[in-house]
Structures are given as structure tokens and as C-alpha cells.
């Protein structure tokens, strides 16, 4: 049996879900016998491959770059997994929505500044006015809540997907878990 092509992607989140992925510890080695990590912050591929079987996506959609990225991922991925509360609900990153981009940027780059106050606007991606969960932007196949989902939960999801089954998360995780 050929190995499945796995990607992990990090949009606007804290990397906690990726850390929970690493918390599978020795099971990571066993996983690598069944899956090739073809794209991830943990490996050096710079280009999202043309065909990916499973993508675990952490984080909300917060910048124009995130938006562009998730659309590309959707196009090239069979099973897209919203991993963690930020991907599923927009969670903490969306806490800026009621304040608006201008107010949060003013605090960081105009008020709490000693020198050269001004909002960064060169090279960096533009912040979207409203941070959104992934499924508001593209269709999502599997939702895995948790802040972060535990390593056991992530292991279960991957094992089920490797066997070609839709994971039934039932009582395994919850929002804020």
C-alpha cells in the first residue's frame, strides 16, 4: 500500500495544535511509516503539492494571504481537516473582530511605540477586516475542536482517515478541551 500524502498547515493560530501533533511522541515515527509529511512547517517543502490526501489545518483565516492559501489548499487536497478551535470557530484570533483592524493596529503600532509609529504596510499581508473560521471560506470535511485537540484525538483522527473511515469524534474532544 502506498503511503498517504499528509500536510499540516498553520494559518492564524498559536501553533498549539501543531505542538499537540508533536505530542504524539514516538507514535510520530510509526505514523511516518504510513504517511509522508509532504508539506508542513516541520519540513522544508516550500510549495504546496498538487495532490495531498489529508491536510490538517490549524488556525483561522485572518489575512489576505491566509485566504489565498486556504483556497489553494482546498483545490489540491482530498480531505481537509479543521484542526482546533481557531480553525473551527475562529476562536481567539476573532476576538479582534468587534474592535476592527484599525483599533488593534493603532494600539500596537501607534500607541505602544517609542520610535517611527505607523502601521506596517510593506511586504506584510493585509489583515482582513473580519477573522473567519475555515468553513466560512471553503468546504471542510472533518471538524476537530479543542484548544488544542489532544495528541490522542489527533492520532485517532489520522488513524481513522488512514483506514478510509470518517472519524466519529463523539466524546473524544470538545471546544476548549
Amino acid at each position, binding site marked *: 500500500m502506498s503511503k498517504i500524502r499528509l500536510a499540516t498547515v498553520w494559518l492564524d493560530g498559536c501553533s498549539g495544535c501543531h505542538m499537540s501533533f508533536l505530542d504524539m511522541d514516538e507514535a*510520530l515515527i510509526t505514523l511516518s511509516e504510513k504517511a509522508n509529511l509532504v508539506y508542513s512547517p516541520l519540513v522544508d517543502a516550500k510549495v504546496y503539492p498538487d495532490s495531498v490526501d489529508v491536510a490538517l489545518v490549524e488556525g483561522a483565516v485572518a489575512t489576505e494571504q491566509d485566504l489565498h492559501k486556504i483556497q489553494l489548499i482546498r483545490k489540491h487536497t482530498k480531505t481537509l481537516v479543521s484542526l482546533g478551535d481557531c480553525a473551527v470557530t475562529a476562536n481567539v484570533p476573532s476576538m479582534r473582530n468587534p474592535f476592527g483592524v484599525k483599533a488593534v493596529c493603532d494600539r500596537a503600532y501607534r500607541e505602544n511605540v517609542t520610535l517611527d509609529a505607523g502601521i506596517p504596510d510593506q511586504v506584510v499581508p493585509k489583515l482582513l477586516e473580519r477573522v473567519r473560521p475555515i468553513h466560512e471560506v471553503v468546504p471542510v470535511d472533518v471538524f476537530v475542536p479543542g484548544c488544542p485537540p489532544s495528541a490522542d484525538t489527533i492520532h485517532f483522527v489520522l488513524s481513522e482517515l488512514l483506514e478510509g473511515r470518517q472519524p466519529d469524534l463523539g466524546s473524544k474532544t470538545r471546544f476548549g478541551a
Partner: protein
Amino acid sequence: MPENASKTIVIDPVTRIEGHAKITLHLNDEGGVDDAHFHVTQFRGFEKFCEGRPFSEMPSLMARICGICPVSHLIASAKACDALLAVRIPPTAEKLRRVFGLAQVVQSHALSFFHLSSPDLLLGMDADPAKSNLFGVFEQKPELARDGIRLRQFGQQIIERLGGKRIHPAWVVPGGVSEPLSELDRDAILAGVSEALKITERTLEWFKSITENFREEIASFGTFATLFLGIVKKDGGLTFYDGAIRIVSAAGDVVANGLEPADYQQYIGEKVERWSYLKSPYYMPTGYPDGIYRVGPLARLNVADRCGTPRADQELAEFHELQRTAVLSSFHYHHPRLIEMLYCVERLEQLLNDPEILSKHVRAIARPNAPEGVGCCEAPRGTLIHHYKIDEQGLMRWANLIIATGHNSMAMNRSILQVAKHFVRGGCMTTGMLNRVEAVIRAYDPCLSCTTHAWGEMPLVVQLLNPSGEILDEVRRSC
């Protein structure tokens, strides 16, 4: 070429770092590097969106800044809240927070060294990018990969035993911690100490045996004079939890000592760069840009007089033999990272063997008594400062955060310029050249989820940009 346009190499995304960033190298007509920028491309706005929320939520909310070092944010935030309560927390609570912080330094340093940088160190800077990862390390030297996984697990399991979960535990609270430590959990943690020490010691020996292969990198990976900043104990010893800020020069002389973290605004300035969401702090008495300083493992071992535990102090003495002044090359961040892991394991063993660690009195209860509070600690990547203001109801009115990686912003930019000038020359861009530019960033172990993220379908492209960063033209380059 259009007027005011320059050729730029874009490395996007920078991989095997904790966060999203891209690097642009601005080329001159001869194909040499004129300037280099490290762009952090994520920004979330915690300093603003915390407003109106109860201060008691801050440790758990602020921990969400970062999934790699949530414990440091918990500690700095809880210390700022302790200041709002104006209480002294019970001694056992402080010791438990210390153990929690030390465990996190072990897991975070293990991630940085083994999972992210060991592929460069074991397989070389010119290795096949398809193999430059933990799984490639496992194929070549399985014991090294297993050691890394095991050591990170040691730290994470301590966090789980104390805090109830490995990532984003809610155990650190204003006034102390929420639950005491059980004898069972203490003994289970202590049972893992001997293996953790052995792993750290053999990794240090392995690292010291290979540094000879990286002479050219040592000479060019951010080898320049800067100040170094970190917290030290009253006796000048290494600490991660509490102390005063000390600054030393490149010559190794103490420039400032005993600076109160609560007064940080008097000596740390924050400058905005329009091309990055990461601000650039500088030491105000020296001004910008001369007030450039570094924080983190290299800085801590340059500012501290001693570690204070036997094995780490032996290693520190050997480390100082590298250079009579402060140790200047950022390549050397890896070495103090390993020494600090040794210290952390030794130190948490001492703390856990103190009978007082099992006391049930772990939390001081109070209402808010001060309108403003600053909390500071040493996170794995350097000095971390949380500063809060609240109203009479205890609702947040304002926050300012200076995150460990932020302090290194100027130094990271200067480092990639130095590496790029040395390794990237006209003609063909090779993977090895560009990987070295990324590797110097990995040495700093920046945690960008902390600071404020990138993406690229274009790994090796030369772009023609105008001064405001607009792409005028682009050409793919490969070898």
C-alpha cells in the same frame, strides 16, 4: 530595469521555525546582497482585544499567544496579575511555578534543537530538503531523533502532571497556582530525571564533537557586537522566574545591572519597521540602532555569572572558553540551549526534593489592589514582559507585551544580512545558500506565533520590487 527597482530573492515561507515569516534579500547589479529583511507576517492584537475583560482571565487568554511556550505567558501574565492583587504568593506556589517554567524550557529547547535544527547539524546545510527534517534524522541517526522526542516528552509530561494538560493548562492563576502537587506526581516526575540528564549530556557531547564542521557558519552566523540582556538572580546566577535585568556589552562588561523589569519603559524603546509586524526593541540609553541587543540562551549565559547547578556550571565554564569576551556568534545559541536544558533538569530535581513543594497552601486570595502591574520572566527565547492596566472593577483597560523573540528582531535582521552577504553570491542560487540564511534564523529559535505568519508558492524567485514592495516583475530561478 525600472527606476528605483531592485532584484530581490524571496524565501517564503521560512521553514522549520515556530511561526510564519519570509525573508527578502535585495541584490545589487553584481548579484551580491545589499540588504536583507526578515518579515514577520502575522499580527493578532492581544494588546487591544483583551480590553474590557476581567484581569483574572488574562493568564489563560494570554497563554493563547503561543502554543510552544504557553507556560511562559501564563507565568508572566500571572505575575502581572499578582502585582494587580498586590500580594506575595505562597512560597510553594512560587516553587511550583518555577518547576513548571523549567519543564517548559526543556520541552521548548528540545523542539528547537532536535526537531527543527538537528537536521541542519546532522545532515549538513546542503542536505536534500526532502530529508531535512526529523524523519530524515531518524533514518540517519535514529537514537538522536528518539532522544529529542523523549526529552521533549519529559518536559511536556511534567507540564501535564502539574497543569492537567500539555498545552494551554489553566493551572497558573493570579495569586499562585490552582492545585497543589501530589506526592505521587512528584515521584513520577523525579523518576524521569536520570534519563533526561543522560540524554542532555550525550547530546551536548555530540554537539561539541560536530561544531568543528561549522567553522564557516560560526564565523558568519550573526557574529557581531551587540549588547546582551537577561534576568539574573541577586547573586548574578541564572534564573528563569524572577530577578532583575542585567545588560552586558560585547566585551563582556556589565553595562547595566539591577534594572527593575517594572520600569522597562524607561530603558527599552520599541521601533516600528513598516515591512514587518514584529517591532524592534532597542536599549534606549544607547539609542537606535546602536541599542541593538540579543536575548535568549546565548544572552542569558553571557549575562549570568553562574548557572548554580553542578553539571551546568562545568559546561558553562567550558562554554566561556569559546571566547574571552561575550560569546558573539549566534550559531552558538544551540550550545547554551543544551546547557540550559541540563540546568533545568538539575534545578527542577532540587526543587522537587524540597519537602515544602508538597505544601497545600498554594494560592493567595485577594481583590485587585493596584491599577497597574508588570510581570516578567525568562521565556525559553528570552525576556518576556506583560504590562496591564485595569479599572476599578478589575476590567482590562490596556496592555503592552514585549515578547522574547521581539527583542532579537534587529539582531535577526543583521544576522541574515551577514549570512547572505557571505554565502549568496551572483549567478546560481543553491538550496544550501538559502538554507543557511534560514538556519541562522533557526539558531535564534524565533517564536513568531508569540510575536505577532507566511506562505509561498514561489520558493526561489527573483522578484523586481519597487521601494514600496510592489512586485513589478518576477523570474523563477533554479539550479
